[in-house]
């Protein structure tokens, strides 16, 4: 289970909805009581009133009535699948497959009812919170210990005193060690803030809360009720100091992680340029547009798959990788053959021509796909985040870091270990010599440019996950890409890697201190100064060859 889902299961909704929570608290206390049939009818009737207040009360009543399919009804409500037939006021659960069942009994709905016009029970955030709180009530009794632990953690964060009896009851019955620990922390969180608890018990509870060590624990200890005994306050202060020491380390780690993640985005964006510009010497201002083409290829692939092979939907992003490579690569080869090959040895003119190409490509995409953003979906396996020691890592960022490194490694292998790579290096180092040795230099030029463009396209697949897929996508990355390549040292892939990561980390370390804008400015100035110090970048080629 991811940290994110744990967070989202809110018990008692932050403790701010007084009346409702009291109701829920009572409902929890009355868990043992048998469900009465008329109570359930009353609860369901509340859903048909089409008012948020009534819906909210109905949720509380439903929890109190605790029917066997209560969790299912709440889940349906939360995801907008709970409907009712206005005339007979029958409440129905619409299942994911479109089938209807009666909320009252869980039996399939008759065709007669299903045929009538149905209204969906409307939901807003307040209702959603109530649904989550209600689900929490069911979850404390759930058969899955992880769910029970999650529910307990939600109580920990809400520290709603009304839940104490329910927690203690659950503790008495709990057998699973993990869930038990969570329940005990939840109990401690309540006791800490409970003015009438014995002092010794409160101090022990403070220690238990401090042991949790996260942001929520800090919030609990920071908001002790006024007039708590001195000893409790002292213990809390010690706990806060301890947590904050750890938080400052965790923050640093978090920023480093963010930096690596930003760095890998920069690496992806720049690595294609490291080939077209770094290796071939083409100042390719249309590089960003190759990234954009890759992103649009992803969009198209996803749509095609959704329309024609829905079974592959989850893998559409993976399928998009080769597609984006080929599409962007093909565009790259076309550009090389029609424009760039006439301009070798005139690097500054390639700048102008490729700038023109980039304008044309942008406008072409705008004409084809329209100027607005296109939606590229994030597959389920890339959603959410995991939390390790208070440092949260989002899955898609982790995926991008790994993907960037993979692309880098692949490219290194290609250039170092294959005959194509050898030919590429031969041509870029000494075109005439390579030509006289029988290498078809024109073909290699086209392939190399295609390779760089293709890699840029692959970067587009990744960037479609975190940024706009719009005709302007590439523009946002072109300056950063050039800076990365130049900072790392032209012609050196390792330089690009180190350059991208160090710029990313530096940016993220500066950001909390200077703010996003000033941080970026400071970084740009630092890079400018660095280039003065080492005019050929981090990993400069040395010796006579450079002068040629």
């Amino acid at each position, binding site marked *: 289970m*991811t940290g*994110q*889902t744990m*967070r*989202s299961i*809110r018990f008692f*909704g932050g403790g*701010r*909805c007084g009346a409702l929570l009291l109701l829920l608290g009572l409902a929890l206390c009355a868990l043992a009581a048998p469900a009465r049939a008329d109570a359930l009818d009353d609860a369901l009737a509340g859903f048909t009133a089409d008012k948020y207040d009534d819906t909210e009360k109905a949720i509380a009543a439903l929890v109190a009535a605790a029917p066997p399919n209560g969790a299912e009804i709440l889940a349906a409500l939360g995801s*907008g699948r709970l409907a009712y037939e206005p005339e007979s006021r029958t409440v129905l659960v619409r299942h994911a497959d479109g089938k209807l069942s009666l909320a009252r009994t869980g039996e399939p709905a008759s065709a007669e009812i299903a045929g009538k016009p149905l209204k969906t029970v*409307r*939901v*807003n*955030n*307040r209702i*959603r919170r109530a649904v989550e709180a209600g689900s929490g009530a069911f979850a404390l009794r759930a058969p899955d210990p992880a769910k029970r632990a999650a529910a307990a953690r939600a109580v920990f964060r809400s520290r709603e005193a009304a839940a104490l009896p329910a927690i203690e009851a659950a503790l008495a019955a709990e057998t699973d060690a993990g869930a038990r620990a969570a329940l005990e922390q939840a109990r401690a969180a309540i006791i800490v803030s409970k003015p009438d608890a014995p002092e010794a018990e409160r101090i022990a509870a403070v220690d238990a809360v401090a042991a949790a060590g996260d*942001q*929520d624990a*800090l*919030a*609990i200890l*920071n*908001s002790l009720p006024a007039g708590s005994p001195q000893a409790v306050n002292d213990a809390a202060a010690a706990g806060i100091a301890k947590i904050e020491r750890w938080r400052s380390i965790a923050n640093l780690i*978090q920023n480093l992680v*963010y930096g690596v*993640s*930003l760095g890998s985005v920069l690496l992806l964006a720049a690595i294609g340029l490291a080939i077209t510009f770094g290796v071939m010497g083409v100042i390719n201002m249309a590089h960003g547009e190759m990234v954009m083409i890759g992103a649009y290829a992803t969009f198209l692939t996803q749509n095609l798959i959704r329309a024609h092979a829905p079974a592959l939907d989850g893998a559409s992003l993976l399928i998009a990788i080769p597609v984006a490579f080929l599409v962007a690569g093909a565009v790259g080869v076309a550009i090389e053959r029609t424009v760039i090959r006439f301009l070798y040895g005139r690097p500054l003119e390639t700048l102008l021509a490729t700038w023109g190409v980039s304008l044309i490509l*942008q*406008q072409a995409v*705008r004409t084809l796909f*329209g*100027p*607005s*953003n*296109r*939606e*590229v*979906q*994030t597959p389920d396996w890339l*959603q*959410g*985040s995991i939390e390790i020691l208070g440092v*949260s890592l*989002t*899955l898609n*960022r982790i995926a991008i870091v790994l993907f960037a490194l993979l692309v880098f490694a692949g490219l290194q292998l290609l250039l170092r270990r294959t005959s194509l790579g050898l030919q590429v290096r031969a041509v870029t180092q000494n075109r005439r010599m390579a030509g006289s040795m029988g290498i078809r230099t024109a073909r290699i030029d086209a392939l190399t440019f295609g390779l760089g463009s293709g890699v840029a396209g692959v970067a587009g697949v990744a960037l479609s*996950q*975190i*940024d*706009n897929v*719009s*005709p*302007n996508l590439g*523009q*946002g990355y072109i300056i950063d890409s050039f800076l990365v390549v130049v900072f790392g040292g032209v012609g050196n892939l390792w330089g690009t890697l180190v350059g991208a990561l160090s710029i990313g980390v530096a940016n*993220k370390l500066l950001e*909390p201190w200077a703010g*996003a*804008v000033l941080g*970026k400015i400071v970084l740009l100035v630092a890079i400018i100064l660095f280039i003065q110090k080492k005019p050929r970048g981090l990993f400069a080629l040395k010796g006579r060859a450079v002068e040629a």
Partner: protein
Amino acid sequence: MRTFLGGLAAAGAMAAALLTGAPAPAAAADDTIKVGILHSLSGTMAISETTLKDAMLMLIDEQNKKGGVLGKKLEPVVVDPASNWPLFAEKARELITKDKVAVVFGCWTSVSRKSVLPVFKELNSILFYPVQYEGEESERNVFYTGAAPNQQAIPAVDYLMKEEEVQRWVLAGTDYVYPRTTNKILEAYLKAKGVKDEDIMINYTPFGHSDWQTIVSDIKKFGSAGKKTAVVSTINGDANVPFYKELGNQGVKATDIPVVAFSVGEEELAGIDTAPLVGHLAAWNYFESVETPENKAFIDQWRAFTRNPKRVTNDPMEAHYIGFNMWVKAVEKAGTTDPDKVIDALPGTEQANLTGGVSKMLPNHHITKPVLIGEIRDDGQFDVVSKTDELVAGDAWSDFLPGSKDLEADWVDLKCGNYNAKTKKCGGQGS
């Protein structure tokens, strides 16, 4: 020596071509009324503005089917100011002096409006500005059909206070004038409501900001202090997609920390997978999902016109719809397209909006609008969760800013855009 003669000759030819002007059929000018459309079709703002150009073309087309205005057909003149602010001024001048348009519908960003303002004043023409903006302005030649801050931001905050019981606020915006003003107004408003300094966090990011990791995690931290927290987002355009993607990925759910946005509409959501964003809010004066016969007709017309059954509508489009129809009525009332007469005829003009009310042009050149709060649905549309009972009158000068609380705009009686109610003089704060 004679080498450069050819070049100069070419320049001369080019200049001559320019002087003779675009192929504007001078003869046609008599039997049509020209309507200028000044929206960026390229550059960074094309993403938002192109739709408005299409909307205007549709509205003009419809009007022509109804017989045009004053017995003449309307002729749209489209130019591309290319998201380049000085170019906006240049193109405005071109529309007014060269194409002789009777009215211009255009601009999106505040800076583009500020850039064209002197041109409209100098050449005495009319601009309809359809986007929600920061207020603090009322000009004789401009009609503001988008929301002023009191028609969007304040009702949204009220809703969050009441419905979501929010006590702690993150005001996150792009660093430009609209978010700065809106946040200033909101800060004053929240403090007036008893919110403490430490419960307000203000954050500005540059345009097109794409790496939101740090800020979203800061918001999470700020929101875990035990009080219900909400984010009021005035983040602009392009930066929203990565912002929402990061929110979704870091698991900030609407039930934990709701985000209410003033610049995110159906068009922006079209580029995002909205499933993780369900429940986040937006405040507008129009949502596509509003069920009224007028809106249904409008949507059908739009989809037919664009030949795209999935094309969405949005708030600024409705603003143009209202503004255009008001202009048509005012021209018919004045019996001429003469700017002075139309400017005088516009205040008081009423036009049914698409959400079931009747908007009215006020003497301060703003209009009355309903305020709607919508929650994002998983299909990229909004569920309207709140709607003001009555239409809210647009306020050019905010009551919550020290510099402008004494100012009033009234172009009917006072003939002044910045009348000082204290000094009883036209001309701002005075000295």
